[in-house]
């Protein structure tokens, strides 16, 4: 384990975060957007876990934080999907670019 430097984990997290962000900001399908958001949150989790193990001041709290993040992310996505469902019932679409009745 010692072979892998902390920066690699951090870079991975950063890349993951960016991929997630990119997905969340560009994908038309709302489901994919939600999944991309999950990616971003998971990037956070990687960061937290990395720091909790290899950080300057390692501590367990990082991992605890991760647990909370996972739980909350689940709730968030659940709510997101629920809302998407009701939107789909009304609008018959899951495309983000068609959600544009509210603007200006």
């Amino acid at each position, binding site marked *: 384990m010692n072979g892998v430097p902390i920066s690699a984990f951090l870079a991975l997290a950063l890349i993951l975060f960016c991929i997630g962000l990119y997905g969340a900001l560009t994908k038309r399908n709302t489901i994919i*957007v939600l999944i991309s958001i999950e990616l971003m949150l998971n990037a956070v989790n990687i960061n937290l876990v990395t720091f909790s193990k290899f950080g300057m001041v390692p501590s367990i709290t990082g991992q605890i934080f991760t647990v909370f993040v996972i739980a909350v992310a689940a709730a968030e996505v659940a709510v997101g999907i629920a809302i998407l469902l009701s939107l789909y019932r009304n609008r018959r679409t899951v495309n983000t*670019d068609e959600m*544009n009745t509210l603007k200006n």
Partner: protein
Amino acid sequence: MENAWLIPLFPLLSFLFLLLFGKKLKEASAYVGILLTLASLVYSVIVLVGRLTNDTYKAEADWLQIGNLQLTVGFEVNQLNALMLVIVSLVSFLVHTYSKGYMHGDERFPVFYAYLGLFTFAMLGLVLSPNLLQTYIFWELVGVGSFLLIGFYFHKDSAKAAAKKAFIMTRIGDVGLLIGMILLFWQTGSFEYDEIFASVQAGEVSGTMITLTSILIFVGAVGKSGQFPLHTWLPDAMEGPTPVSALIHAATMVAAGVYLVATMFPVFAASETAMATVAIVGAVTAIFAATIGLTQTDIKRVLAYSTVSQLGYMMLALGAAGYVAGVFHLMTHAFFKALLFLAAGSVIHAVHTQDIEKMGGLWKRLKFTAPLFLIGTLAISGVPLLSGFFSKDEILIAAWANGNYVLFWLAVIAAFFTAFYMFRLFFMVFTGKPRSEYKNVHESPASMTGPMVVLGILAVISGYVNTPWFGTFLGDWLVEGNEALGHGHIEGPAWIMIVATLVSLAGIYLAYLMYMKRSLAQDWFTSRAPTVYSIVNNKYFIDEIYQSTIVYATKAVSLFLRFIELFLVEGLVKSVTGIVQGLGKLGAKLQNGQVQAYGTVAFVGLAVLMLIFALTGGYL
């Protein structure tokens, strides 16, 4: 004399009373006005008589406190204003009386008397003022009185225009006076005449400053006295009822300019340039107006130009250091010119026209008016033994004695013209055959002829208070105790008197030839120099020049400013609101309803912030 301040209050009372109750009194208003001006007259005479034996009296009270400055109001009785008081109140009283007949039947009769009261009050107040500030105050008030009376027939557009013109032209002069007086105040520390004189004589004021301020003050006089180039309002002012012309535009208010210069004489005398300016303007005006008078056909306008011309004479006198001559002519002119105007009024009253070309042969029909008019004409023409002769002679002598030979000869020529056009007027109105059909030509009532008779007598005899033959009582008295005013009598060569007499007789003879005997064609001159005639007949196009320069320039400036207003001021506002609106539009456009755009904006914002942070913090 301690109660001289009451004199102006009588007419003021008349004004206020008639303003409030005039409507109920109807034509009985006249009695209120007449009685109250009579009171003024009586009191003025008492004051004059008192002044003959006593010294100058002056009283003042605090008026306005400005920090440490204390401005006062009060009154002063000296030789000059004691004399003026009598002249003003006398003419005013006579005009009040005359108007009762002249204005009979006018629906605004009480208003007319109220205005007369206001004017008389202001004029008497002006005369009594012991300082420049107070003089200025009343100076403006007489202007208002004049304005109201000129515009008395307010429904006539010409009257409206004339009133406006009179007010504005004189106001141009007034501003000069205001500036001059304020400058003088900061130089001498006072508005009081005696203090200003003391300061000037003590040499506390620099020469340029004296010249500047006295010329500025003279500008005020130019405006008020209808001197060139601010004279154009005075002929137009004839739109007012004729008694008003007699009172204001012949005898009193227009003489106020002369009075002002006379009052400020010690200051003027301290600057040669100022004196020369006064003299030149006076002489130019005298001849200039006289030439215009030659061509006019409106009876009142002829008289108006003659007034301008005569006022020029007075200015010339003052400018030529002939203090006494100027004041003397002021007095005699007041009488004979008022007489002429009242007589003219009587003529107009009879024939209901002002155009002399339509008159003629009235001598027989107007038994009183005609001889009185003749007396006035003789007096103004400078025919020996009448008042105008003596005073005009004094002026010519003063001009000669002062070395202003050019101005002297100008004055002589003007005198010739005066005699000519006055007799032209007389002959055309009273002799020959009637040139149009008159109905009900009748002599005016006694209330009108009475005052004319009084003035007629004065026009004959008033010259005798100051003659080289019987003694210069007036002159000696006027300059008594005040060396700055010069001598009571200036000696001049005897031939001047002869020249003056010859010139006036020549003028009369020429008029006789042309208009009475008709041995000389009336268009003898006109046909030979039509251009000159046309220029003169059009009053040298002064009005037109003003119209196309000053008035036009004012309009141009106004339009230019409107342009600024519309494009710069409003444009500024519009551009600011435009920017705000534009920003709003932009912001709203950005809000395109796309959820991911929102996130992108946030992310880009974040990225930019981090980038700037990195750059400024030196981390990259």
